[in-house]
């Protein structure tokens, strides 16, 4: 399987476009945060951020378009395909580690920090900071409610979150059905199952959006309501961002299917999207268990 002709691309402008775009976008978003925290005008920061984001969108269209064109022209060998597989696999692993940091924060707060603040365990003397603070999880009473007003109540896992779990697990199954249909070259079925997957994803996002509004408006469960709210919103929020990203990827893949891209035996772009979608699904299962239920 030696590389008779491993495709080494020509010079490309996309990496430098991506760098410029990312720099401007990041500078914009950082200025936005600094200026609004300082109570200053955010107009310039918004403009910078928008310009950077537009460059990034232009880059994504251009770079991916470039890769799709090369792939369709048959420039990629099976060895190239393996490079893409390693690349995507390790990228997903890096995402897993990103979520691991937030899960780690959640577990640390529950298992160590809060019991200690409540006077239990090895470092129970920290209870002297807020005497009388009672450790409990979920954290309904924060040590200092004047700074971090606690939530009135929490989201019941067995209502909408359970519904969302069913949605997302089902969407993983429909994505797999689409993949099997593609391998059979049954392209009508591929389209049906992909559209079903996207529909499930969109319903999930709507339910999640409704849940956030409910949490903020009715339950006083916010980012500011102590470590429970912090971990809840950061974990579900980053997961939601990944669902949005995954949905965009699925939409692109679906459009490509409609354009006649991907063959029964050569469709790594499609598979990568499925891998990503399964990853998003697995993270949700972790969230449902450790954030909502337990």
């Amino acid at each position, binding site marked *: 399987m030696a590389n008779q002709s491993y495709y*080494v691309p020509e*010079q490309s402008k996309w990496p430098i476009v991506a760098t410029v775009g990312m720099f401007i976008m990041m500078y914009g978003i*950082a200025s936005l945060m600094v200026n609004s925290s300082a109570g200053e005008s955010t107009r310039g920061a918004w403009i910078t951020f928008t310009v950077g984001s537009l460059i990034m969108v232009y880059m994504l269209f251009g770079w991916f378009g470039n890769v799709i064109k090369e792939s369709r022209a048959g420039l990629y060998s099976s060895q190239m395909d393996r490079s893409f597989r390693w690349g995507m696999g390790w990228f997903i692993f*890096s995402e897993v580690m990103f979520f691991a940091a937030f899960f780690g924060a959640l577990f640390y707060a529950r298992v160590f920090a809060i019991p200690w603040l409540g006077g239990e365990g090895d470092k129970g003397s920290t209870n002297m900071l807020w005497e009388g603070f009672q450790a409990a999880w979920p954290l309904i009473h924060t*040590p200092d409610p004047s700074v*971090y007003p606690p939530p009135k109540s929490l989201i019941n896992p067995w209502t909408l979150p359970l519904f969302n779990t069913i949605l997302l697990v089902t969407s993983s199954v429909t994505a797999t059905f689409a993949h099997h249909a593609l391998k059979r070259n049954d392209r009508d079925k591929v389209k049906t199952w992909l559209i079903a997957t996207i529909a499930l994803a969109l319903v999930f996002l709507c339910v999640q959006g409704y849940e956030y509004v409910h949490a903020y408006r009715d339950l006083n469960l916010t980012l500011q309501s*102590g470590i429970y709210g912090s971990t809840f919103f950061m974990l579900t929020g980053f997961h939601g961002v990944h669902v949005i990203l995954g949905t965009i990827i699925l939409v692109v893949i679906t459009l490509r299917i409609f354009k006649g891209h991907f063959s029964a035996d050569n469709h790594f772009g499609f598979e990568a999207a499925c891998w990503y979608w399964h990853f998003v699904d697995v993270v949700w299962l972790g969230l449902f268990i450790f954030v909502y239920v337990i």
Partner: protein
Amino acid sequence: MGSHAQDHHHGPAKGISRWLFTTNHKDIGSMYLIFSFAMFLIGGAMAMVIRAELFQPGLQIVEPNFFNQMTTMHGLIMVFGAVMPAFVGLANWMLPLMVGAPDMALPRMNNWSFWLLPAAFLMLLSTLFMPGGAPNFGWTFYAPLSTTYGPPSTTFFIFAVHIMGVSSIMGAINVIATILNMRAPGMTLMKMPLFVWTWLITAFLLIAVMPVLAGVVTMMLMDIHFGTSFFDAAGGGDPVLFQHIFWFFGHPEVYIMILPAFGVVSQIIPAFARKPLFGYASMVYAVGAIAILSFLVWAHHMFTVGIPLFGQLFFMYATMLIAVPTGVKVFNWVATMFRGSMTFEAPMLFSVAFVILFTIGGFSGLMLAIAPADFQYHDTYFVVAHFHYVLVPGAIFGIYAAVYYWLPKWTGHMYDEVLAKTHFWMSFVGMNLAFFPMHFLGLAGMPRRIPDYALQFSNFNMISSIGAFMFGLTQLLFLFIVVKCALGGPKAPAKPWEGAEGLEWEVDSPAPYHTFSTPPEIK
């Protein structure tokens, strides 16, 4: 097929577009190395400010707040801007040559990985000119110093770290895909040169911990701007949580900075001892063991912050365990030299110094690993001495050894050996003068990260500053040597080192723009 064959035979593009748009691993490797040296000089200039201020007791040159900005930026720039990119540059240049691949596996992404770094450091350095100044909380940016009490520029620092992280993760993915997928036929894993092995494992560490760093700076960002309480006990969080997550990243990070140097030294010592590396397989397993252990020792940085006794014991013993695989490596390097026909060209000088001085740094690390002793050493100059002994004669000497070893391959010229030896001896004397007295200062109780100190520390500090100035100036000599070698000098043969082995010596010097378009056959 025909048109691709042509692609492989043309040379580089002309002008600036060659560097902006390149997909060539040699171009990208050179850019990484040049960038990292530029950062090394900037970070080094900051170290000179620090040592100038500490030359005498009392406040002489800078304000305390600016001093803190210098220590912070010096650490961040050296870690993320100098050492890491230098090793990625070496990986870019050498991995495809050493495994017989035409290029890195994902060449366009490779270019993006590089160009993100100047963007990230432009953002980081710009904080020096912002209201409130640059980050001043130390390179470890502990909360709440960096959240509640940090300057406004902290937000820009956070996004700079994000960009560096994106760069590192993509670079690491590229390294793994190259090593696992692009080896020439016949090169099994256990035939890979050790530099390739150490980079494979380093890349795994990078992908595992850079996202955790991204996570912790994101939590900081949320605490600063959006009212979360990750690191605030008033909301049920914990400042110590910051340290746990940071060091879960930070400890593997220190191995990220040293494992490729292990690889370099494992290439060079056999070449100049004219003997095969002693215990190849045990070297591979030792690196693997160090990598695994690196995930289990993070809290040894936190013995004094109030962690349970069980935690102290666990992390103390796990840390000491690392001495075992590290000892295996040092033993093997020494055994490789034993009864070898040794010569001491510059790469070998740096490598031998690496083995001896890194071991000193390792031993002071063992002292710090002892929890009750660490209560005494924590946050003193002893810690500064320790990590500078593993980073300067460890990581940096490893990089210098690699550069001298492969410079003939890169430029096609031999470097000036007399100047290179001068560079080595000046560096060797300078860095020992700079860092050895810090052990005594630390044991005597001088705290780190302060601009002023008690009178009894004066003499050692003055010696240390003189050594630091000497070391710093000497690096300009290195710049001169490399430029001189790039511009001319005696023609280097394909294999300039008699005892060297590996595929990289089978291509011409300088290495043609495209190499191994058809993979070599490995016996």
